């Protein structure tokens, strides 16, 4: 089965899987030695890592990139020049409030379908598509409900593993055994773009210094999971349900306007979700008045304008302390720097 790699959360994995191809939402590793795209002034380290991963991946049968970020859009130009694997650039609109933008997303899904057929995929029947969608939906539900049974890192890794490999047989999270003992750390949220492979250490680092991540609002975390499917609509018009669940269900800083991201954050920061503890401690948000989260780690890539511009706004929006972690590359020095910053942040909070 041909493996189709991508990283953008707005690409519905089910659509690829229903064509008989294997969707794989990769988590790039910026430390890989093979790096045809070198560090360039102004280039986002994540875009660079993704390009290098995609170019080096000899097993991939196709690459999908999207226009959600301008650097990725430009990165596609590099990919098609450096890589022979068939590739597809999907237009994901930045505006979302009007029917035309939703229609554009839908049309792009159809165009993606034609690309997948050119790669050897088979157009799914409505029932086979619905079956795949239900399977993925069940797996996502299973991941969401497993939060209480997993550590923050395990939870983040289970989301990443689902994106990379799809649902496990039976749609259940394998290591779901018993409810874990919630560590006594200070509850924090992490907000930002996608993580790369080595970045999952951040969850351990937070715990090591007395905190715990209770909301993973990174692109590779909870924020990048699409909304649940409506079972009735899914059978009537599955593609329209992709629009609802993906295009309408994933909130991102790149949206114009991106007010819904803050609504989502307000809801999630307040929500007494499993593993987040109770909303006992003090008023902290301007929008929402109180919640369990005591601080926010804002993780962004240097040269990522979209997220960088949100930092100050977030600080103005919330009364919660916000720690800015800017990631420029993969150096050990940088790692020590952000570790020390997290440590100092937690010391301040406690």
């Amino acid at each position, binding site marked *: 089965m041909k493996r189709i790699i991508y990283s953008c959360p707005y690409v519905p994995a089910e659509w690829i899987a229903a064509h008989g191809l294997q969707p794989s939402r990769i988590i790039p590793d910026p430390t890989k030695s093979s790096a045809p795209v070198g560090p*360039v002034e102004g280039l986002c380290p994540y875009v660079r890592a993704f390009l290098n991963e995609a170019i080096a991946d000899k097993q991939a049968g196709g690459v999908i990139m999207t*226009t959600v970020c301008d650097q990725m859009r*430009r990165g596609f130009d590099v990919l098609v*020049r450096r890589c022979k694997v068939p590739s597809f650039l999907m237009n994901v609109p*930045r505006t979302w409030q009007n029917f*035309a933008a939703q229609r554009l997303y839908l049309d792009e899904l159809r165009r993606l379908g034609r690309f997948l057929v050119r790669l050897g995929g088979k157009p799914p029947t409505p029932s086979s598509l619905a079956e795949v969608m239900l399977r993925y939906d069940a797996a996502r539900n299973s991941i969401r409900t497993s939060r209480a049974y997993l550590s923050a890192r395990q939870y983040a890794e289970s989301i990443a593993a689902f994106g990379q490999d799809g649902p496990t047989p039976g749609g259940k999270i394998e290591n779901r055994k018993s409810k874990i003992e919630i560590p006594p750390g200070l509850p924090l949220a992490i907000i930002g773009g996608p993580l790369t492979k080595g970045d999952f250490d951040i969850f351990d680092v937070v715990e090591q210094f007395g905190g715990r991540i209770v909301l993973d609002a990174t692109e590779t975390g909870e924020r990048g999971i699409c909304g649940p499917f409506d079972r009735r609509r899914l059978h009537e018009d599955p593609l329209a349900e992709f629009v609802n669940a993906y295009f309408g269900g994933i909130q991102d800083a790149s949206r*114009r306007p991106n007010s819904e991201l803050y609504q989502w954050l307000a809801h999630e920061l307040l929500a007494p979700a499993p593993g987040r503890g109770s909303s006992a401690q003090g008023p902290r948000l301007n929008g929402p008045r109180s919640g369990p989260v005591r601080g926010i780690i804002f993780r962004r890539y240097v040269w990522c304008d979209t997220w960088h511009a949100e930092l*100050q706004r977030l600080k103005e929006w919330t009364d919660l302390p916000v720690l800015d972690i800017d990631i420029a590359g993969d150096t050990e020095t940088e790692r020590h720097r952000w570790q020390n910053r997290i440590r100092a942040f937690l010391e301040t909070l406690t």
Partner: protein
Amino acid sequence: MRDTPEQITLQQWDQRYEQMQKAGIAQPSYGGRLSRHVGDGDTRLLKLRYDNSAAALRLWNFLLTEEERLREARDRGKKIVGTMKDLGTVPVMAYSLDDVVAFYPDGAWWIPCVMELNAGLLSIADSLGIDESFCPVRAMLGAFISGEHFPIPELLICSVGATCDDFSAIAQRLEELGYPILWWEIPHRREPDLGEESVKLPGGFSAPRCQVEFVKSELHRLRKALEGFTGQHLSDEKLSAGIKKANQVRRLLAQLRRLVFTARLCPMPALEMLIAEMLAIHFCSDRNETVKVLKDLLDEVKERVRAGTGLLSADAARIFWVNPVADLQVMNLLEDCGGRISGTEYLFTHALDQIPENLPPMEALAQMALADPMVGSSADRASRICAEIRMVDAEAVVISRIPGASHCALEGQIIGEIIQAELDVPVLEIEVPSLTDSIRPTLRTRLEALVEAVRQWRKR
């Protein structure tokens, strides 16, 4: 009053202005000594060199009085529309209405240069979390907050989608600070798929019919908004008339560019040509006056070409310049180093192409918006640059990076590779911040090296 063409300082311009006054040469209402703008804080003017023609003086005075023009328009009760990012399309629509002035607040990106950072706009942007890792267009944010550089438009329209992230992020920040924005989507222009209906766009790119239809629907949304804002009906007839007027400007510019870029002796310096090209995007807030300013420039250039006069050496290296410079002085520097501009791609070639007049106006405008070189691939952009290099017979290319701009990290390399593969001409990539004083020796060395390379190339 015609003299030998030369580049003169601001001080020399004042002396020359006195002579012009004595000779009874009439000035437009916004005319006057160039040096008066230094009193407004435009201190960079002291360090530039200017063409010595009356046409150039008019051009500069027209440019440097735009703020006054906008405030006067407001005082007269005209509606002011701020159009952002699309560079050329929405103003054509806005100017089709009566008593509407449209301008690009994006133009504030030159304020840090012209006022040599004294306006404090970048500090304001810094304080709002938009630091130096963003493109100098962040000065726009400071200009909105300070309210000192243009009247705040009652309606703000911004294109998003296939645009640079820095501008989009800054505009989002602006909205959050209390300046509501009407966003419209411009999708990434792609090649039509096999069997898909294709549309040939002005300028030569192609796009699938469905993308043209989508953009048309977005422009219809803007049309409704403009109608609601002004209380006027924006009919097809009005739009067609607006397109004709815009095309008049574009035709003048096309003639001007062709003559200047191909003349044996350079008849108009790079700096004045850069300013002239910029008039195309929103007519410097006065469409009729733009026509007059360009006609004057064109007459001057025609006369110089006819007389066989010009500036710079006849063997100046013929340079094609990609992207506008944040520091205007670099245009002078290129000429100091032995180069001349023989072709440009300042990000808005679609605003220089004729808008089709034989199509329904909304179709024509949609095609034009999609013809924007920045909404397509870097390879598309490079192919157009190559075609233009061939037309003007340029000998080398400078790709001028805009610091912090999201498109500049990767596109320069691709454009450079394609140009070298297709044309075998030297390509130099430089970065030009708002003020280049501290890196001037380095820039000079690099530009001189490029000119030397051109001279070597000629011997092959």
